[in-house]
């Protein structure tokens, strides 16, 4: 299953969000990936998520597979929806 999200944060997908995403993805028994254009990375890998260079307004596709796919998908997408303050 997958869902489309938009990076609404003015600072783009910054370090704090990437950190929260990876922590969140690791919690579930599921494989979560994030795709921007033709690039797909594991949501657990902070560095890979950051190198997507997802600036504000970019559309991303979040995929989840596995036992807890729907929970993982919900939680990870929620992080995009509630703007996380950058400050880092």
């Amino acid at each position, binding site marked *: 299953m997958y869902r489309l999200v938009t990076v609404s944060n003015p*600072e*783009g*997908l*910054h*370090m*704090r969000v*990437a*950190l929260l995403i*990876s*922590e969140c993805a690791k919690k579930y028994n599921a494989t979560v990936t994030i795709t921007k254009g033709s690039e797909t*990375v*594991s949501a*657990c*890998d*902070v*560095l*890979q998520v*950051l*190198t997507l*260079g997802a*600036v504000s307004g970019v559309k991303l596709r979040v995929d989840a597979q596995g036992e807890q796919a729907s929970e993982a998908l919900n939680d990870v997408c929620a992080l995009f929806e509630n703007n996380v303050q*950058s*400050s*880092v």
Partner: protein
Amino acid sequence: MITLKGIPVSPGIAIGEALVIDNEGFRISHSVVDPSEVEEEINRYKNAFDIAQQELATNAKTVTKELGESYGLIFQAHHAILDDSMLRKEILEKIEKERYSAPFAISTVFRQYAEKFKNIPDNQLSLRANDILDLETRIMKIVMGVHSESLTAIDKDLIVLAHNLTPSETTNMNRNCIRAFVTEIGSKGSHTAIIAEALEIPAVVGVGSFLDSVQAGQRVIVDGNQGIIYINPTVEILKQYQKTLHRYYELNAQLNNLDNIPCQTKDGTRIRILGNMELEFEAQNCLNRGADGIGLYRTEFLWLTNELQLDEESHFQKYKQVVETMCGKPVTIRTCDLGADKLLTNILPGEDRNPALGLRSIRLCLSMPEMFRKQLRAILRASAYGPIQILFPMVSTLSEWRRIKMIVNDVFEDLDERGIPFNHNIPLGIMVEVPSTVMMIEEFLQAVDFISIGTNDLIQYTVAVDRTNKDVAKLFNGCEPSVIKLIWKTVTAANRVNKPVSLCGQMASDPALTMLLLGLGLRSLSMPPGAMRDIKRVCSSLDMLRCREIAFRALRTDNAGDIQSLLQRELANILPEKYRQEE
């Protein structure tokens, strides 16, 4: 032969072999290992990652506690980056398939990521390249630390050529082999300059990009007087410099006998010459040059090397060692004078857009009271072993001073309760380096035991010039009449109430300014040991009456240029053999 030019920051001449340190501050050996060593390199890389993650976890905790969650988060993020499975896979592949050495593999992969970030068009995100390079440096230090490639292992006559040098690098070098420093970036007052002066070896900084054209082991001549570097010099030039070097040694031998004579002017006015120092061994150098004490013991370095793991015991040991070396001569210890930006090793791009006016120095200490207390405890404990005074940098208001006093009193009580001996009458003083402090100097003088004028910052804050910015650096000038008036006001006020006042900063070690400073009423100057002979010699040829005349003339002059030429002319009259526009 390649000839390079830069900013001379420490005088002298040196000839030696090139030791090239790569851009980010360490040498990468582009080395490929034997198949039998692959296993070991893999362990080396994994081990380095483990240690780095342990460090980051501790730092995250400390910083979160001291500065708040948002600062600590950076370390958490760095920790998480090292868990990145792709990153690890790529490094592993470089070692396994291409048989790269661990440092080479790590560095190659990290640089690729840094490049990726730099190419992101969004400014905020592309700044993350700095995080990657910072992490790379951290891991490299660990990888190199356990192996023999570190600078400690050097044992030849060497000229260090680097992009920039950091405090931890310069201390880990084998000092007996380093003959000079040359760096691509930097300016007067940069760390390289301070260390070179302390080691009394020549240094040229701000040369611009040149490391690519030099190979390790090539012969290099560094002329720290003129700021010229020759790589692979011709035979004629080499001969000429060997001759100069010889003359230099002879001259130095003649000046040796100045070391044992107390500094005084021609008419017998005693001038106290104090030392500026940072590393413990420099105390001995100051003593050898006949210093009357230590006027400025910088302790930032002790904070930097231990990365926020400020350890009271190790500070105490260093302070004790210095005060014991000085055999009863007073030691002025300055508390941490770092900016938040430096403390967090530059991983906060954009956080502090104006660091000179931001959370730095005493402000940073007051915002991290636990750390500050630790340093104060260490200093106070050392005060049981000899005369120590505490100098607080960048104090700009009296309320700040009162907060400092409160913390000091707390530490007093704490030590008393635990029955630890220390000097209860330890003199407490401030650096006068912000114009607001000068405006309130009478009030400050009632509250403090002594003052020390820090000219580098005083000039910066008075004329609003960052001297490391080459576009405006020319405006940074100690002869600015405004600066001279501030010094005069400060010294006069201190002398009126009989409170000790000294001056540290580069103005103290410039022979051309000595008569101005004495004329303004200063009797105590603090400088690096390498400058002491020159200043002593100048003092011994000065007449106080004439100094006062010169100072008053300077106070009536309205521009820096005229004051400078007045002083240069006067110096050339007094010591023609040395200062009349020589070679």
